[in-house]
């Protein structure tokens, strides 16, 4: 039985606000009233857990997990890093899911009609559990930039969508990983929903030559930080847990 505790308050000034006019879709999808702030109860500090029986060993290898006739087209990359909490502690055994466009910038989704072709050997999603020290790794191809209808000439920087759980449902997080050196990052209205440039830097994965597989794949390192848990030195945890 896990002994989960209260979470650090989420820093709403570090996250994007709900209403960000330059990302137009947010205008009608952003609540106008203030969020109701709650102290944690069992409903927030517990959360689903996943095990190795839920996933397959190949699920984190996007070069292979949808391969039909051969490997997908594109630049072969490794994305690796750790899931940590705000205390700097690793988050072990937590589910990390990713999804992305193919090397041409096209998604395998019935609602995507971009003229770049579908890659028959690329699904575009993967998932894994972090190890005992919070480490995770994926193999994939570098996604292409793609256009989207916001302003007439908007292009998303190359990015990988990332979903992470943690131990409490209130730690649930979806974000996006960008690639070091991409000139489109600074021009993207979705990136720029994040007000603080240091927070944007936190989403840019570093080229990691030490982690490449020579003559095979180039590597990027991307650490993900979830909300921290309060210490239990003082009995401030909710009743009933």
């Amino acid at each position: 039985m896990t002994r989960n505790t209260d979470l650090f308050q989420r820093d709403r000034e570090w996250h994007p606000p709900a209403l960000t006019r330059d990302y137009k879709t947010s205008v009608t999808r952003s609540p106008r009233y203030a969020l109701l702030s709650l102290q944690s109860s069992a409903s927030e500090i517990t959360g689903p857990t996943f095990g190795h029986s839920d996933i397959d060993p190949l699920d984190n290898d996007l070069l292979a997990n949808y391969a039909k006739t051969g490997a997908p087209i594109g630049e072969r990359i490794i994305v690796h890093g750790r899931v940590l909490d705000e205390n700097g502690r690793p988050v072990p055994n937590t589910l990390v899911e990713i999804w992305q466009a193919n090397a041409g910038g096209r998604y395998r989704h019935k609602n995507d009609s971009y003229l770049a072709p579908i890659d028959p050997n690329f699904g575009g999603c993967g998932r894994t559990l972090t190890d005992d020290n919070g480490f995770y790794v994926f193999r994939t191809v570098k996604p292409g930039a793609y256009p989207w209808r916001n302003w007439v000439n908007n292009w998303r920087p190359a990015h990988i969508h990332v979903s992470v759980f943690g131990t409490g449902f209130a730690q649930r997080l979806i974000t996006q990983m960008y690639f070091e050196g991409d000139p489109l990052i600074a021009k993207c209205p979705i990136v720029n929903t994040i007000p603080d440039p240091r927070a944007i830097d936190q989403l840019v994965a570093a080229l990691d030559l030490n982690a490449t597989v020579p003559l095979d794949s180039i590597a990027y390192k991307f650490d993900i930080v979830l909300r921290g848990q309060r210490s239990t030195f003082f009995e401030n945890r909710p009743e009933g847990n």
Partner: protein
Amino acid sequence: MVQKLDYLKESPSQTAGPYVHIGLAPRAAGFDIYARELGHDITGPNAKGERITVSGIVTDGTGAPVKDVLIEVWQANAAGVYPGAGEVEPGFRGWGRVVPDFETGEWTFDTVKPGPVMGRDGRMMAPHINLWLVARGINTGLNTRLYFGDEEAANATDPVLDLIEPAHRRQTLIASVDGSGYRLDICLQGDNETVFLDV
């Protein structure tokens, strides 16, 4: 000068975008990739309690359905126990993913009605299901709760509903009894804007 606090910052959120289903519900995106796609079975086969169906629609500030929303649910079992916090029936996960019909935006899921769970300061919380909504245009996932319209007595003393100062807004979290099931329409914005939670 003082010592530096060496906490890390939480990774900032970014919208899940319109293609969230590829990652979290690939069959809804139109393809089959995983042997076991997660989130389709909230209760497992052994769950005790009342089997219920919950349905609804999420609408935006113009009243239009949000057809690309993805909702995650997290709930206790019928005895009011969350997985991880105590013994639950084998196979009871308490968690699931809900994707609406892309044409209409209507969603539905099957589960068991959760029992009441102890809240802070020894105050019992009325039966509820925790919801987390992500979609294109939602920059940070939205947390809310679903309470049950036929639990009037428990709802009246629920410590979270009690925090909602304009009493009429409490109704935005309470699912109505709808035939054999429950229905909760969620408004992201507008006159009936749902109460969203900073949990």
